[in-house]
């Protein structure tokens, strides 16, 4: 395993994207525009898609495990699961029950086992460096007075998809144009790490369509890498100031650190201000609000007594 030095950028990690929408809108065709894709077809729906790429037709989850052992997935950059409901609620459900008959009567236990098995599959694809696109139909869920579109899987599988995905998009037709909405709304579930606005999918004859999904996945990876750099930068600053704050035993020094922290961007400030406040308490400093600085508690008390 290569060592990545602490000041080097981490390689862009593979991503998990869920695309859900009404049947026939072209979700599988969209997947076919990914980079070097392999579709695991659990629903026998690949024949209806256009630009068909390599597909794996499976009859049971054991077929997936067998191909995994044979190293088939390592030859592809993007793996598609079509559909999530068939893979999780049918194939994997049957598989975990075949492994442990008691789970047939213990649905909660069965979903726990499905979750473990699917997470293992996802982790293996990540280890291979492949991106994962999970395709689902849409269904409607009631939340109070609101009716919301969500991926069509059972409750526990829905929870699993929400947890493992980086990006969740709802595909629908708006003004005769196919679109993907990643931003969550009152009426659609979404996850949008890359903050991608409503995307219009180009027409199938448009040259931009041919690698549309590949471009989208790249956008998500770039956004995650960017955020990771911002986070690393913030952590470095926290480490630097934390050392200064924790070793500080002088009220003037703490006041000086405080004024530097107040100049930092808002999003770093609040945590560091808490450390300054903790340090003041630990050292017995109190704020002199008139002078805008920290002083030792005994001096503050002495000053209070002095006028008498």
């Amino acid at each position, binding site marked *: 395993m290569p060592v990545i030095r602490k000041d080097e950028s981490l390689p862009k990690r593979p991503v998990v994207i869920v695309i859900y929408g009404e049947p026939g809108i072209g979700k599988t065709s969209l997947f076919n525009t990914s980079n070097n894709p392999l579709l695991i077809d659990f629903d026998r729906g690949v024949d209806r898609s256009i630009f068909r790429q390599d597909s794996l037709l499976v009859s049971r989850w054991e077929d997936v495990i067998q191909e995994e052992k044979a190293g088939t997935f390592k030859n592809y950059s993007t793996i598609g699961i079509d559909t999530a409901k068939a893979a999780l609620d049918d194939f994997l459900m049957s598989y975990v029950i075949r492994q442990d008959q008691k789970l047939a009567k213990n649905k909660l236990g069965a979903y*726990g086992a499905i979750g473990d098995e699917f997470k293992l599959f996802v982790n293996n694809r990540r280890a291979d460096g492949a991106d994962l696109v999970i395709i689902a139909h849409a269904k409607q869920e009631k*939340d109070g007075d609101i009716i919301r579109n969500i991926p069509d899987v059972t409750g526990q599988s829905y*929870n699993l998809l929400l*947890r493992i995905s980086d990006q969740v998009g709802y595909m629908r037709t708006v003004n005769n144009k196919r679109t993907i909405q990643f931003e969550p709304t009152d009426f659609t579930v979404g*996850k*949008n790490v890359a903050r991608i606005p409503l995307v219009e999918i180009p027409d199938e004859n448009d040259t931009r369509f041919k690698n549309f999904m590949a471009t989208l996945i790249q956008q998500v990876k770039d956004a995650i890498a960017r955020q990771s750099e911002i986070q*690393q930068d913030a952590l470095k600053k*926290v480490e630097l100031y934390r050392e200064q704050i924790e070793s500080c035993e002088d009220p003037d020094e703490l006041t000086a650190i405080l004024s530097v922290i107040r100049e930092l961007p808002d*999003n770093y400030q609040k945590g*560091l201000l808490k450390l300054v406040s903790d340090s003041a308490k630990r050292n017995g400093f109190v704020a002199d609000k008139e002078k805008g600085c920290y002083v030792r508690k005994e001096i503050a008390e002495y000053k209070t007594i002095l006028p008498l």
Partner: protein
Amino acid sequence: MNIQSIEQVKDTDVKYKVSISVLEKFRRFQTGTTKYDTEQALLDTIMGKFVPNDKVKFGSAIHKIIERFNREAYNGEMYVDDFILSSEQYRPALEYRKQHPLMIHEVPISKVYQTRDLQLLVTGRADGIEGVEIRDIKAKFSLPLWSEYYVSYQWRFYLSMFGLDTFWYDIFEVRDFPPAIINGRAIGAYVLEPESFQCLRYDALEDDVLTLCNDFAEFMIRKNYLNLLTKIK
């Protein structure tokens, strides 16, 4: 709206203090999340009427290990609050703490939201701030339902108030929790490695948060419950 409420509300210098927990409880009541999310349950939360059960206390012990670990284990057991935790119970929290050395714990936050009728001073305390990310630690005694966290307004308020973009729920699932605590021990219980769930800022987040504040303020005025909130001048 009654006369008293109108007078209270018209004083523009007054802010009504409310915690994020109360606002989330209000959302659950408003959407009828469960049969336990009643108006009375909301009022109990506002008035701080809450008697922690053993599960809540156990969760607090896990929290304490992460927040301010300063305890040694003796004979494979660790004393935290009222509990004596086995290594299967304290180790995941200890590991978590080691994995997050730069997390700043228990960071307080407050922000004023101007609703249509009054000003709400919303207060909260984040379990941890790590770089530019917020982290919330929870102990759960059944399979975590991530969709419940997804619809929650807790993370939306924290993102809005800290002005950050990423919030993580770190869930420690506790299995086989016994019906009774014997001599401070939850015998047979064990804690799994935490699973994390990411919640992200989205375009309409600030609008959503303000809408909930508006709904809450309107409800408190209509029901004449404003006197239950602390007034700040």
